């Protein structure tokens, strides 16, 4: 009743949640066996910025939205340049897409008939 089955695979969230909690417990157990010699307010707790000096204001450490995934977007720049060109913001282009899709759908439907 609780899980779902697709006929070739099954998914039971309650079993999954129990397993998840079990793994968490094991994780905390392993953590509790660790070395407790941890000193606050020393160099151990400082932010490590590839060896650079840490800025004073912690706000300067916040990575802003624009900078996230910069590398990925740069890597896919060919794709993004093309797909951004399609979103021109001009209403006539949007309507042209509509008419174009209509034509393609007609051609396919008439061809396969």
């Amino acid at each position, binding site marked *: 009743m609780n899980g779902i089955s697709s006929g070739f695979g099954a998914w039971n969230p309650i079993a999954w949640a129990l397993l998840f909690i079990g793994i968490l417990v094991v994780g905390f157990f392993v953590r509790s066996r660790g070395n407790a010699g941890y000193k606050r307010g020393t160099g151990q707790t400082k932010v490590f910025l590839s060896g650079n000096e840490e800025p004073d204001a912690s706000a300067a450490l916040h990575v802003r939205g624009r900078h996230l995934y910069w590398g990925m977007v740069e890597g896919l720049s060919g794709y993004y340049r093309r797909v951004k060109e399609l*979103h021109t*913001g*001009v209403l*006539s282009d949007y*309507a042209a897409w509509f008419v174009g899709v209509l034509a393609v759908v007609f051609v396919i439907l008439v061809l396969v008939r």
Partner: protein
Amino acid sequence: MNIGNLPFVVAALLVAFGIYTFLFKRNLIKLVIGVSLVETGVNLFLVTLGYRTAGIAPIYTFAPEAERMVLPTPQALTLTSIVIGLATTALLLSFAVFIHRHYGTLDVRKVKELRG
């Protein structure tokens, strides 16, 4: 006089002109006119569907025999569609007025702050 399929041709032409206007004109008001043209074409198509040669409309006190009666469904559809068209045209035109107020232009190619 029998005009045959002429109304259907006119309806198709109106729709085609409307789409042409919508795609290739730059003024927002003309775009609205294009939408209106498409709508007129569709309305004409609906009305034409309901036309029967020598048919009589069934007004409550004067209903003809069954063979000559025209079921007034397409006319009812057209009336509804005209009313809806009025509402959409009014809404579109009022948006156009406010766009002119904010952007200072009605050129569809310059009203593109929302893109990407």
